[in-house]
């Protein structure tokens, strides 16, 4: 679905992504993980066409993502960012249907679609007409997810969708999200810095360091055959406090 070839990008003089090759097959869930500032969010934005590479190419469904087609391609991707990025002046429902309304979807189709998404994400019906300020953090994440899914995109890009939530809700939402991904059978790229969460979702984990891919594989691959000292350290560091079993 996505094919990145030798993608490099820098902010001012600061190289941020260096020669990344990455291919993401349709229907799989890929998790980007790595220390803070390693370029996970930037890589996601490159895929979305919110940023463009200085060198190399980003291809989505066999088309190179470029300024002239990015907007059209983005309508086939759903994007969920940390903190949700919900528009405070619109209700939950208006946030979810903003793009559908702009595209002129008939009202009953919109209602049916929202109902389906609400059931899928287990979102309370009476909260649909509330404003983001009147929702809990978990509810906001769900609205953000519904907004991303509204146009039935081919892929779902999620940047730390559960980052700001407390552990209990986070666990619940992890379960729910996994169900959603399985039901929808979409291509998913998810960013997290929690290895446990990565293992929970991923068909394939991409561990990044300083704008490069340090290793790609299953959690088992990372644990049993780390490609470098960094991978070993990263896995061990995450292992101790979280205490998950591999």
């Amino acid at each position, binding site marked *: 679905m996505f094919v990145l070839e030798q993608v490099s990008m820098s902010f001012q003089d600061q190289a941020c992504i260096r020669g990344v090759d990455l291919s993401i097959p349709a229907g799989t869930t890929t998790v980007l993980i790595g220390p803070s500032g390693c370029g996970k969010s930037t890589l996601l934005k490159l895929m979305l066409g*919110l940023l463009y590479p200085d060198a190399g190419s980003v291809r989505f469904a066999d088309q190179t993502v470029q300024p002239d087609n990015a907007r059209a391609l*983005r309508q086939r991707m759903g*994007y969920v960012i940390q903190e949700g990025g919900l*528009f*405070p002046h619109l209700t939950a429902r208006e946030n979810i249907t903003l*793009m559908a309304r*702009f595209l002129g979807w008939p009202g009953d189709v919109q209602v049916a679609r929202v109902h389906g998404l609400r059931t899928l994400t287990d979102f309370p019906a009476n909260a649909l007409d509330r404003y983001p300020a009147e929702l809990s953090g978990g509810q906001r994440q769900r609205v953000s997810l519904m907004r991303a899914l509204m146009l039935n995109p081919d892929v779902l890009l999620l940047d730390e969708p559960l980052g700001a939530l407390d552990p209990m809700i986070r666990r619940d939402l992890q379960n729910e999200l996994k169900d959603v991904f399985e039901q929808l059978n979409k291509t998913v790229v998810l960013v997290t810095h929690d290895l446990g969460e990565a293992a929970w979702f991923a068909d394939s984990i991409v561990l990044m360091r300083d704008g490069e891919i340090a290793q790609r594989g299953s959690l088992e691959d990372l644990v049993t055959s780390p490609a470098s000292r960094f991978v070993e350290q990263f896995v061990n560091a995450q292992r101790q406090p979280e205490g998950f079993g591999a």
Partner: protein
Amino acid sequence: MKRPCLLVGALALLLITAATPAAAQDVLVIGSKKFTESVVLGEIALALATDAGAEATHLRELGGSRVLFNALRDGEIHVYPDYTGTLALELLAQDTGGRTVDDVVLRGLLATRGIRMTRPLGFNNTYALGMRETRARELNISTVSDLVRYPGLNFGFSNEFMDRADGWPALRSHYGLPQTGVVGMDHDLAYRALESAGIDVMDLYTTDAEITYYRLRALQDDKNYFPEYHAVFLYREELDQQFPAFVHRLNTLTGTITQDQMVLMNARVKIDRVSESIVAADFLQLDSAVQQENFSQRLRRTTLAHLTLTGISLGLAILIAIPLGVFAARRPHFGHLVLGTVAIVQTIPALAMFVFMIPLLGIGAPPAIAALLLYSLLPIVRNTYAGLHDIPVELQESAEALGLPPSAKLRLVELPLATRSILAGIKTSAVINVGTATLGALIGAGGYGQPILTGIRLDDMGLILEGAVPAAILALLVQGAFSLLERWVLPRGLRLAQAGA
């Protein structure tokens, strides 16, 4: 960005169309200068015009000689009173070489500009030196030459008279006056100084109302130093065809207003506080012709004029400033240019801004509206820019990621998010606008500035308050109205988000 550009263009066009003098064809427009005598003469012309069956209006207190003369030349007004001396020595100085010339020459010079002049109305309002009657009698002074005998007298002259080449310096050498105690002072203060014997002699105009009030003696100009300032009416030549009856009546006035009558009329207005229209009607014995406006009628008229000035200028400013602010937020380079330009416009003193508009748009409401419009731009442009610029990055990114095209993004996401900031800018503009609009009266636009201006001229605190108090109340009302409006238009979600933050 195409549509806002078109919009601005269309508005500019609208403004220019609105600015062309309306109904210049069938309404006779009379002007007057910014002092009592000119206003009285203007009212006399108005009463004559009405009596002659013409539809006429009087734009009072438009400004100085140059403003009135240019307005007449450009057809914005059709008639106004002036003085032969002013014409020869000031307005037509380029042609006369700055010397007094006779009326035939003046007529010829005016005719080349499409302007006609009546014969003198009677009185000569020139400079004179004045003393208290008692003091003059005591020293037996009745002419300027008599002053030579008293080198110790103190003189207090208006600053204009001190500085003018044909003022004090030339007068002194003409008469060989020996006095050294000469100071420049404000004209009104000079009257008081004369009364309290702080000075002995001051400059005055021979028809000043104060001459009777302070019991002054105007010394005779026995060596014919001062030029003659005979009052005349100037009018555009086409009035001969358009309003023949009025022109006829205007010419019957010639030679009928004596110096004493004019002093008395000035005094009735300035000292007895009788309105100029009544004084004019009394003089013409046309008491039925003028209907005296009462307080509430006057308030209604000034309020309407004021609201028109602020309403139109603010409305146009909003329509121009918001697209400019959007544009500034979109194009950083252009944005700095726009913000810098409107900020510079804002630094022009308001008074100067109004006067600058006269050559472009003439006098009356259109130039005042244009000046107010320019003045209202900055707060709205800046707040629109800031409102858009300060939208959190993640919201901009979300809108972008949804795939909304720029125009839809602006309409559905960015402008609603910037509402609070934009409204605050409009509110600031509106409050400034209401206050600044009082200056509109200086260029004939009416409004609350009119009673203030007249009040200053007549030294009438009541009249000043009649303009100042409603202006202040209006500003408060505007402020209140915007607070209500904010509740009404600000998206509910934003208010909640604000309360939570």
